[in-house]
């Protein structure tokens, strides 16, 4: 009996030791490492990229407990998508990414941790502009946060417009029909000058669809249905064709739109709002901007980058979140916005003295910020990139006359459905 008791006690002690060991290991696994290393990937280049990096470096200097193992530039939005997708498949994903539609990655995994994280009082979630927050959602839930946000803006060459005897500051065209008439007048007064073009035709076209009451796609639960082949969509496509037929817009020349505008041979161009900081004062003519003309209601589609966390490790996630809060605080976001030309995403940024002074001083910036009040975030879904390609082909076919507006829209919808 004694032997049995001794064996039982020994077994209990051994079991206890095993559990104690396991508990120690678990505690060790949960203990925060002295320094947490994170990998940051971003797709903002040039001077804007440098500005972002300087903000990250300032954060790291103030947080020695966090170390950036990588601060990696990932190329254009398309390059970044390839790089991030490949890395995710290989289990080599970074911890934090800043790129176009970054919410697609956690969103597709059903990871909506951002909903919880955003409740952090330090972020001051309510301070973000409503429409802009929508831009960071996936299936209606927050999967990222906005970072470098832009909208299309219609810039114009004031010198050419003055020659036509027009003052667009006092009398800007409100609707697209009025806009076409203005273009024709400017073209008539300036020989060899084209009226209008868009460097990102699909982005502008989506804005136009929404202005005409067409949401591009409809979403019910997780089901996405493209709807731009209905009457309101075809109306916009027909207007697009009219721009080409009436000689206001050159067919299939969108790639050169910004260069022609800079060279003074194009009167109006629809381009991203972050051209604002780069073009103002640097072109050989006076630069102006008008609020985006519209069909039924004013609207501009949002664009740009969002920031999200891919890290699943608790401490890495926390380190990324600290960094995100830092770069998104009012002070840093305002500084980034003023330096880069991206739009202020916080309401409090618009109250900032520097921003107020800039808006008062720059009619261009005033137009850009005014447009934010009716900016629109289109629905993000997995096949969105493919749909944009189908849009591009559709517009190309409309402009070249290969397809009628109705045929082109129906074909694009058919292909998008197949992709979905």
């Amino acid at each position, binding site marked *: 009996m004694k032997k049995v008791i001794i064996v039982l006690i020994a077994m209990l002690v051994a079991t206890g030791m095993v559990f104690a060991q396991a508990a120690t290991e678990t505690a060790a696994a949960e203990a925060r490492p002295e320094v947490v290393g994170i990998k940051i*990937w971003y797709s903002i*280049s*040039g*001077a804007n990229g440098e500005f972002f990096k300087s903000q990250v470096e300032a954060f790291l200097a103030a947080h020695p407990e966090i170390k950036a193992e*990588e601060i990696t530039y*990932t*190329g254009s939005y398309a390059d970044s998508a*390839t790089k991030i997708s490949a890395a995710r498949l290989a289990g*080599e994903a970074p911890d934090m990414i800043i790129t176009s539609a970054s919410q697609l990655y956690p969103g597709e995994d059903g990871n909506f941790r951002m909903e919880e994280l955003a409740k952090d009082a330090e972020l001051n979630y309510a301070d973000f502009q409503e429409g802009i927050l929508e831009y960071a959602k996936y299936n209606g839930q927050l999967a990222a946060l906005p970072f470098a946000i832009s909208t299309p803006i219609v810039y114009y060459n004031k010198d050419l417009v003055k020659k036509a005897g027009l003052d667009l500051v006092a009398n800007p065209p409100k609707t697209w029909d009025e806009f076409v008439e203005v273009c024709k007048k400017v073209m008539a007064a300036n020989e060899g000058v084209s009226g209008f073009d868009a460097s990102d035709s699909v982005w502008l076209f989506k804005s136009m669809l929404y202005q005409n009451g067409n949401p591009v796609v409809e979403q019910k639960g997780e089901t996405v249905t493209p709807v731009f082949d209905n009457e309101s969509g075809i109306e916009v496509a027909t207007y697009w064709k009219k721009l080409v037929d009436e000689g206001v817009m050159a067919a299939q020349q969108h790639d050169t739109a910004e260069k022609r505008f800079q060279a003074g041979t194009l009167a109006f161009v629809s381009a991203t709002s972050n051209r604002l900081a780069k073009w103002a004062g640097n072109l*050989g003519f006076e630069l102006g901007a008008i609020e985006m003309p519209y069909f039924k209601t004013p609207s501009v589609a949002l664009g740009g980058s969002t920031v999200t966390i891919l890290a699943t490790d608790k401490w890495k996630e926390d380190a990324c979140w600290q960094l995100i809060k830092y770069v998104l605080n009012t002070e840093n976001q305002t500084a980034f916005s003023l330096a880069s030309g991206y739009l202020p995403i916080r309401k409090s940024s618009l109250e900032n003295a520097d921003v107020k002074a800039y808006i008062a001083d720059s009619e261009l910036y005033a137009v850009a910020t005014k447009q934010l009040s009716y900016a629109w975030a289109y629905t993000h879904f997995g096949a969105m990139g493919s749909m944009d390609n189908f849009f591009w082909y559709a517009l190309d076919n409309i402009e070249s006359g290969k397809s009628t507006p109705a045929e082109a829209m129906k074909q694009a919808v058919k292909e998008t459905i197949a992709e979905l």
Partner: protein
Amino acid sequence: MSKSKLKRYNWFIFVLLFIGSLTMIFPFVWMILSSFKTVRDVYTYPPKWLPSEWKWTNFETVFRMIPFGRYYLNSIFTSVAQTFLQIVLSIFGAYCITFLDFPGKKKLTVLIRSTMFVPMVVTLVPMYLIVAKLHGIDTYGGIILPQVFSAFTLFLISSFFAAIPKDLVDSARIDGCGYFRIMGTIVIPNSKASISTAALFSFLGHWKSYTWPLIITNKDKYRTLPIGMKYLVQESSSEYQVMMAASVMAILPVLILFVLFEKQLVKSVTLTGMKA
């Protein structure tokens, strides 16, 4: 042909070639001049040939914005290594395809040739997964090895090998030469021009290679020049002058190679009708 006719004819050719040369040289001159311009000069319309002030600081800006020296050395190292390995592999492959008979040779040739019709974007992700499994991310091996094989280079060299009389190779075999000796003493010396051209094309391809090094590297230590150039270009649309300064420095190795291999290049272009 009378002397006056000949003279007229030469003048016509001269003018034609002069215009052609100007057209070719124009982008280079424009690039060099633009690398010294101010932002305003770049956007002035009508365009200005000469900078209003010569801004050497554009070159400094390049070094400030990206680790240009490191990227430059990486590009030279990876391009030279890839070119060397590609040429060695292609010579062996071309020799097999041209001079050896073995079962399945035709099928193998078709298989190799078919790789030329697969766009890189299709193989990008599978290739990344393989390299990741082999722990090749952020290594020179990861950049170099997946880009070493090229069906184009192999068949380019093979087409020149085919011009060498097979009897010459057979005679060498009868005299007791092994494969390597035949290659070293007969085949390669008779194909120097073609191998130089293949090397030049290969180097150019690797020098400007962007997507694969971008995907497979994350650390500046391993990144190459085209990635740095893209970083300068993409959104800084108002900073063409900085991009041009970087481009002037980036094309130097290519220009040196062209000068060194000009003779061979012209010779093989004449033979094959290819252009760089």
